[in-house]
């Protein structure tokens, strides 16, 4: 069986005919395999969902217990139709996984979802899975993206907090994954005291605690008076009246995009922190070299850059041009 008979893009998402399932579909389908809990990959309303236990629990928190007709935790390899599927850690956020599809006849395909190879205290580390076809994101698929050591970015945050001790530091971070990683990085950098979190982060932070990730003392940033200098909030909060309770705050944003000044300026950010949960250029190219697949498929992001690199390396590559995935999901 040819590779594109095993997996191919459709308007609803990547579809696997021999297993009759979709991976990370963007529309409601009868059977969905889901890599991780970010809103653009994990949507509600599917007939049946197969995902890691943590991803299922995260979906239940975000969408309610009835987010799908049926659900099943992917604890071990599973037969679906004429395929065997298995889930492997992706290092992106809590519960994130790559999905390996081994058809009974034909090439083995690994859909990596969003993945990251920097050490991440809130996620199991990325596991390389040998395969014939590697399906990768290219969010940061240009050689200008070399994410710095996050510890160095935290040093810059601490320096600013010392330089402006009277000002709250409001750091924008996506509610699932980035926010908790930022809190853990702050703990590793020596911030032991309370960190204030926006209300939208509360339940997801609680869930990380339940999963044994010790985020340390957190206080709600919903009170009129917020008694922590470091405040973490989802980016959407900065456009809301919630910010008005802070007098002259330093506004920061934690994202891989902050490496580019024009992007940071568009956001009106005073303290850009380059912290990303996606592979950067050195990581994505290293991963492809290590896995040495026969073919690379690129789901979304800056595919032109990665296509060009594959061409230079003599690796067959093609863009899937999947729509519906955001650059860095909220």
């Amino acid at each position: 069986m040819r590779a594109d008979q095993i997996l191919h893009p459709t308007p609803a998402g990547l579809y696997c005919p021999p297993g009759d399932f979709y991976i990370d579909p963007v529309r409601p389908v009868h059977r969905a395999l889901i890599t991780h809990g970010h809103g653009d990959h994990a949507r509600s309303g599917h007939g049946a969902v197969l995902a890691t236990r943590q991803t299922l629990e995260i979906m239940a928190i975000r969408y309610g217990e009835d987010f799908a007709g049926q659900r099943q935790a992917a604890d071990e390899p599973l037969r679906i139709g004429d395929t065997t599927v298995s889930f492997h850690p992706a290092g992106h956020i809590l519960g994130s996984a790559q999905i390996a599809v081994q058809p009974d006849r034909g090439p083995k395909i690994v859909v990596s979802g969003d993945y990251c190879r920097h050490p991440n205290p809130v996620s199991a580390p990325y596991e390389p899975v040998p395969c014939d076809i590697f399906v990768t994101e290219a969010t940061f698929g240009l050689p200008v993206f070399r994410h710095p050591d996050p510890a160095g970015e935290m040093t810059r945050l601490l320096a600013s907090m010392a330089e402006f001790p009277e000002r709250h530091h409001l750091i924008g971070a996506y509610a699932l994954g980035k926010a908790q990683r930022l809190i853990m990085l702050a703990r590793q950098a020596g911030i032991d005291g309370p960190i204030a979190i926006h209300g939208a982060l509360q339940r997801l932070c609680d869930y990380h605690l339940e999963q044994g990730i010790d985020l340390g003392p957190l206080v709600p940033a919903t009170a009129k008076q917020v008694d922590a200098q470091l405040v973490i909030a989802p980016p959407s909060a900065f456009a809301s009246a919630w910010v008005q309770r802070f007098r002259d705050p330093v506004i920061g944003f934690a994202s891989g995009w902050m490496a580019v000044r024009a992007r940071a300026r568009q956001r009106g950010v005073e303290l850009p922190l380059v912290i990303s949960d996606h592979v950067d250029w050195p990581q994505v190219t290293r991963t492809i070299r290590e896995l040495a697949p026969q073919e690379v498929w690129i789901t979304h992001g800056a595919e032109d850059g990665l296509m060009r690199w594959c061409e230079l390396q003599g690796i067959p590559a093609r863009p899937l041009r999947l729509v519906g995935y955001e650059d860095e999901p909220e």
Partner: protein
Amino acid sequence: MRAFANLLERLAFTPARNAKLRLLRHYLEQTPDPDRGYALAALTGDLKLRTVTPGLLRGLMVERVDEQLFAMSYDFVGDLAETIALLWDTDRNEDVPLTQAVALLSETGKAGLPAAIATMLDRLGPSQRLAFLKLATGNMRIGLSARMARMALADMGDPDVAQIEEIWHGLTPPYQPLFDWIAGGTRPEHAARAPFRPVMLSTPVDLDQLGAFDPADYVAEWKWDGIRVQAINDGGVRRLYSRTGEDISNSFPDLIEALNFDGTVDGELLVRRGEDVAVFGDLQKRLGRKQVGRGMLESHPAGLRVYDLMIWQGRDLRELPLMERRAVLEGADFGSNRIDVSPLLDFTTWDDLAALRADPPAAVIEGVMIKRRDSPYVGGRPRGPWFKWKRDPHVVDAVLLYAQRGHGKRSGFYSDFTFGLWEADQLVPVGKAYFGFTDEELRELDRFVRNNTTERFGPVRSVAPKLVLEVAFEGLNASGRHKSGVAMRFPRISRIRWDKPASEADHLSTLKAMIP
């Protein structure tokens, strides 16, 4: 250079002036000589280095990166120096002293430059690479004036801004004697001729406040709508400074040539054609040019209207009462018909003066200056001896079109407002205002913006065109750069007209009729 790179990055993203000053002061306090002096000069544009061309940098890059990937990267990043800083592949991250980078850029010959730059880039981490490349391309774009740099210096020790300004123009990077003085050492002597002397400034006043003073104690003159300057000829060294001490001699070679006297004088820079003084817009065309073309010199000739003498023929007059300085001024020969004396106005009561102010003889007059007869010339803005009584501002009723979120104390508030006027049945944007309202009004405006948003573009929202703002402004220039064809000076929101329907706001033609 790590600290310098950090400072550049923070300054680039910090909008608030006070925060910028603090960042700069901390850097200067914590950085050793001579690095901090070179950094200061780089920030204020006073560091003269060999300028590296974009072509040279591109050449370095295509030897190292696939040309297509480079083009895609440049396209995404949008800035050549930044693209190269991000693309350069090295694991080293040494803290190279800024002084070494400065030496490289001032001493390396043309042939050796590409290799020297590549070797330096190999040693640096990404933010330092960007700082180095910005230094090399002479393109800091940091928005830090020399005035702000001096304010940060004044915060470091005893000498105040006026004292630092007085010696500033005699100093050269890396300013070791200046830092020594700030640390408690001796004051550097004037190293150069024609130094800038701190200017005496006035405070605003109105008719009610004037009632407390005896008009007999004061003289008055027109307030000219030009640029306050200090013009100097010190033993043949000629300089023209703005009132904040920026050297603007290069923009006005015609006036420099006319400074045929010996002294330091205080006056108004104007564009003059014979006896007529041109409007501010004409003067603006002469500003900020490194070189002025012959045509511009002929069509927009610069002149000087003097109102005070600080130093004249070797004598420092600043301690004398105004009327004694004035006597010298009126008898002075400036040696050029481009220079004349600002005349005194004839008045007995404040009401007389009010009548003169209400009906000035020329459009370029923006009010009256009132000065105490016995006032010595004191740098800074002492309260009392000198007043400015500006003419009432112009106002138009405009419609709020866009709002942008503010920074700092206004974080989270929509506080920068773009407004427009009618032209046929369209609203044309004519300006932007971000002050004039109270904190309470800001909250009301913010609420209006949130409740009436029609579109969002990043930090900007467009709003339903239904709120009328009374906008006050000081003057108007015709402008080819603005879609409306006019540019307002000092626009601010003087009233929020919750009561007035947008259809009754003013028309663009009304505004255009106010162009002098």
